[in-house]
């Protein structure tokens, strides 16, 4: 009886693992196929051809699109962490009137549907003259990275004991010194986690990137992949699409596997507590 139960449990585990991993595995298998091999269903790689990778990396704007994504995501992470850590200090360590109302307002911004600000942002971005520029994305992505980073860093800072600050206050340190000298060194784990989650969110964003950039060179990878098309509806270059998909996903999967525990704790801090 116990044996059957164990067996069933492991079958369930296996099913979950296969469903989770198979689609990405199959994308990798497809990306190594070329020519007519694409049109045969294979469950494991038979021949390995790099033709799709070479084609994606040497023709078209894909390398440039990749660089765009790296630039935008990195800038978004740096700016939102800088803004969020000082704000989190104020929200977590200083008592003032309206503090919880302010936190709730910030949290509610993260529930905004992006489409609700799209028309207004579009007008603003054209007015600022940054339409078709990566700046438009760095600016607009703050709407979803800021509330989240502020929230997670605030909950993290609130849990630190008061003693760590006391010595610095007694020594007459100014709040700015306290943030940079006392909190920053303690906050590295939280900064890495929130930074990673913000990076992934910026890397994957589609709606703003599709709307605020209309030129192929300035696009980021999600939009570039969505717009890869063949000469006609019947000539969709699936091999290239899969190769490009693998290229943009592998860095994320590697990051996720390395920082697994940190990411899970960050997700649940953002979720369970907010």
């Amino acid at each position, binding site marked *: 009886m116990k044996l059957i139960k164990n067996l069933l*449990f492991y079958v*369930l*585990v296996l099913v*979950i*693992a296969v469903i*989770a991993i198979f689609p990405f595995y*199959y994308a990798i298998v497809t990306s190594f196929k070329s020519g007519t091999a*694409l*049109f*045969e*269903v294979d469950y494991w790689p038979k021949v390995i051809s790099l033709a799709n990778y070479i084609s994606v990396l040497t023709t078209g704007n894909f390398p440039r699109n990749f660089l765009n994504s790296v630039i935008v995501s990195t800038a978004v992470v740096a700016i939102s962490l800088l*803004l*969020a850590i*000082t704000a989190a200090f*104020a*929200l977590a*360590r*200083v008592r*003032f009137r309206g503090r919880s109302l*302010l936190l*709730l307002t910030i949290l509610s*911004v993260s*529930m*905004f*549907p*992006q*489409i*609700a*600000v*799209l*028309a*207004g*942002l579009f007008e*603003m971005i054209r007015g600022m003259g940054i339409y078709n520029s990566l700046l438009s994305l760095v*600016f607009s992505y*703050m709407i979803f990275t*800021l509330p989240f980073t502020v929230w997670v860093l605030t909950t993290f800072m609130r849990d630190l004991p008061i003693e760590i600050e006391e010595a610095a206050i007694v020594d007459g340190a*100014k*709040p700015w010194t306290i943030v940079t000298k006392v909190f920053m060194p303690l906050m590295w784990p939280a900064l890495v986690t929130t930074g990673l989650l913000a990076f*992934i969110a910026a890397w*994957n964003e*589609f*709606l703003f990137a599709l*709307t605020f950039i209309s030129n192929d060179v300035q696009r980021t990878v*999600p*939009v570039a*992949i*969505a717009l890869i098309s063949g000469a006609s509806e019947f000539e969709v270059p699936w091999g290239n699409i*899969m190769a490009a*998909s693998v290229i*943009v996903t592998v860095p994320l999967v590697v*990051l*996720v*596997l390395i920082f*697994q525990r940190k990411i*899970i704790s960050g*997700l*649940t801090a953002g979720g*369970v507590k*907010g």
Partner: protein
Amino acid sequence: MKRESQLSRQRKRAAWLFLTPMLAVLAAVALWPLLKTIYFGFTDASLDDLAGARWIGFRNFLEYVDYGDGTGEYYGLLADPTWWNAVRNTLFFTVVSVVFETILGMIVALVLNANFRGRGFMRAAILIPWAIPTIVSAKMWAWMMHDQFGILNDIGLSLGLISTPIAWTASADTAMAAVIIVDIWKTTPFMALLILAGLQMIPGDIYEAARIDGVNPIKVFWRVTLPLVRPALMVAVIFRGLDSMRIFDLIYVLTPNNAQTTSMSVYARQNLFEFDKFAYGSAASTLLFLTIAIITILYIWAGRVSFDGGR
């Protein structure tokens, strides 16, 4: 005493100084564009002439045009069948996918909460669908669901589940199912991790006591586990629900131009930038925002969700 209050005043001043840049950015990127979108919904703005927008009241939402001969017709979003179709699609998608994600997420979380060899590997495997960009997962699944060369049809045919290949993403009957399947695959991990965090907060001795008393495991689940993870579950459901209500990317890429799957966000963007009805699209965005705001408030009020983690 004097020094104390001086200190706290200094800290309060610094706090506001620290908060200002963040609040200014949020106001610029969220508050102002939101107000502007709402405003555009009440004007006749067009994509080429945003500055020349004139106030036209509720005409984008509902307007009765009298033909002067005793007949007339309603125009505007609230009288537009394609808008209501988008509302229906969105609500159907949200309810079905969130229900499945909750049940499957609970199962995955219970598995991950058990002690077994390879648990670390499983937790990593679960994160893969979450980490894959939505666009990439849409393309991956579009290829797997391909009507001629797709592996899904191949599996279905060889197992005898289907007799002819199915055009998953193109056919009117299956397009919505295709979208829901991909969404469930992509977001169940998030649900599972949130529920898992809730499960891990349940003290182990409760289970120990139930085991010694010989309580049936199914009864333990309904009587002990479920009530205790309810707060975490409620938060996970509202997060997923709000996220599904605004779905755009997956539908836009997996089933483009398909009336069976057009969501409220897709409808709004089509009007804003593809059909040259900027004001009409803004009105649709406003209605979506209102819907989400009202549902959130009702849910928090009805479920008494505590976002403060009980603080």
